């Protein structure tokens, strides 16, 4: 087998190579780019992204044709409409980015190529954030399109005004949802489990919050409630405190515990 000699360099001098600087760490930007590629090179990832975009368009279309032409047809309304499916669907990609390393057992390779696992954890987080930001850009473009479409078809005479608070609130809100998805993935490490937890737990809170005895807790712990003034640019008073408390519970705690678990647990093949 002389093919071997053509593809390997001379190994006698290899220990010098280690000293000569090729031992330098993998750049963080490369890890992020890699994680973004891993999110889009499988069928599961592509389907999730297409479904998310499809839903953004679908709810926009419903918005165009429903109700009176004078009702909720402003640019701001279409952005709010489009960001709903993004809150629900895109964080699932954040979940998947993490859990696939265990469910598909790719962690065995990923963590031997980058044994400092916290770098992988942060790369996944940043990749999910980039995806979330891209999602908001798409939602904005779609919102512009549908606002114009409604005006053309139904003479809605919409307001094209979009305050920076609403845009910032939508972006930050989406990034927070992405982060919660990543945190759940890291904590639970199992695809169905983490997805169910991400989708069900906040809803459970919302249901609980509808009872009078738990109303007070829900105000502080239900992220759907605490994040909505952020999206509507109506944050005031103790809204900030409520947002911080709910994020401590649903983001900070699972993220810290999840990263600890990811960096300390044993990576096995079976």
């Amino acid at each position, binding site marked *: 087998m002389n093919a*071997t000699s053509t593809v*390997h360099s001379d190994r006698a001098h290899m220990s010098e190579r*280690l000293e000569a600087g090729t031992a330098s760490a993998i750049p963080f930007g490369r890890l992020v780019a890699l994680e973004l590629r891993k999110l889009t*090179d499988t069928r599961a990832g592509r389907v999730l992204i297409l479904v998310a975009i499809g839903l953004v368009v679908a709810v926009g279309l419903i918005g165009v044709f429903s109700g009176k032409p004078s009702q909720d047809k402003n640019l701001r309304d279409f952005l709010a409409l489009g960001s709903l499916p993004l809150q629900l669907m895109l964080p699932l990609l954040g979940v998947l980015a993490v859990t696939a390393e265990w469910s598909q057992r790719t962690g065995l390779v990923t963590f031997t190529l980058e*044994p400092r696992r916290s770098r992988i954890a942060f790369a996944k987080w940043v990749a999910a954030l980039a995806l979330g930001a891209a999602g908001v850009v798409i939602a904005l473009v779609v919102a512009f399109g549908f606002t114009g479409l409604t005006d053309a078809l139904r003479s809605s005479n919409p307001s094209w005004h979009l305050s920076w608070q609403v845009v910032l609130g939508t972006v930050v809100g989406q990034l927070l949802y992405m982060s919660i998805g990543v945190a759940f993935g890291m904590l639970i490490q199992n695809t169905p489990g983490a997805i169910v937890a991400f989708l069900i737990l906040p809803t459970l809170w919302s249901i609980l919050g509808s009872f009078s005895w738990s109303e007070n807790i829900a105000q502080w712990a239900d992220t759907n409630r605490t994040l909505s003034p952020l999206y509507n640019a109506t944050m005031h008073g103790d809204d900030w405190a409520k947002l911080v408390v709910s994020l401590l519970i649903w983001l900070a705690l699972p993220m810290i515990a999840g990263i600890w678990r990811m960096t300390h647990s044993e990576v096995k093949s079976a």
Partner: protein
Amino acid sequence: MIEVAHLTRRYGRYVAVDDVSFRVEPGTVTGFLGPNGAGKSTCMRMITGLTPPTSGTATVLGRPYVALGNPGRHVGVLLDAAAQHAGRTGREILTLGAIMMGLDRHRVDEMLELVGLTGEESRRRLRNYSLGMRQRLGIAHALLGDPQVLILDEPANGLDPAGIRWMRSLLRGFADEGGTVLLSSHLLHEIEVVADDLVVIGRGRIVANGSKAQLMSAAGTTVRSADDARLATALEVGGFQAAPMNGGGIHTDAEPCVVGQLALQQQVALLELREAGTSGLEEMFLQLTAADAREGVAA
């Protein structure tokens, strides 16, 4: 070079790896032998930083694995060929590795060619790969970063005889160029041809460790005679061990010359007398797999 010192891993009260120490030198292929569940994989995961050891240390090229920076450029690792995303194509899996290690994409085609995966096969999804194809892809992945150390867990699993022969010559060539190879298997005959050194592990402990030649000469002597029982007694009286073998004959730790002299004294006619060699290693190995064999054979 790989250096393992007093590695131990406990799971609760169960000790999976118990005070394991060995070295793998550059330019050699070291066979890591042991029955299923002996602790080979756990050991290899500890060397590559996937499993934190309870105690002990492991270094590769003089550093702990985590300190290698971009380890794929120095150490090729294949721990489980099936542990890849089933929905990715072989080519995509190698491309992801090449991106992560910062390699030229040509390297992907070179490695596919080296392991004999065709262009069509490389565009299939992994779930449609046979075990042998997965192993070839895994070996391609391990070689991607042009490493100087290879750590391969049961790479011959699922390969056909031609594939096993191909892999042997690949590893031999790699070691002859100065590379370091640690290769595990639960089948002695699978690696005895290619291995220079052997580390035999059973129930988490090293039971034999040394060059293949050394271990084979330490494997004792096999003898067949006209009266095995009488010869066995004489050997035991002389302070040697003598165990009957399956299919007749005796296995003993006495030198062939000593056995011959004893047979002469006892006037027992010899039918066959030789160093046990490989069959002795096999014997030792089988004892390890037997449920009650706790004591090892020291080399």
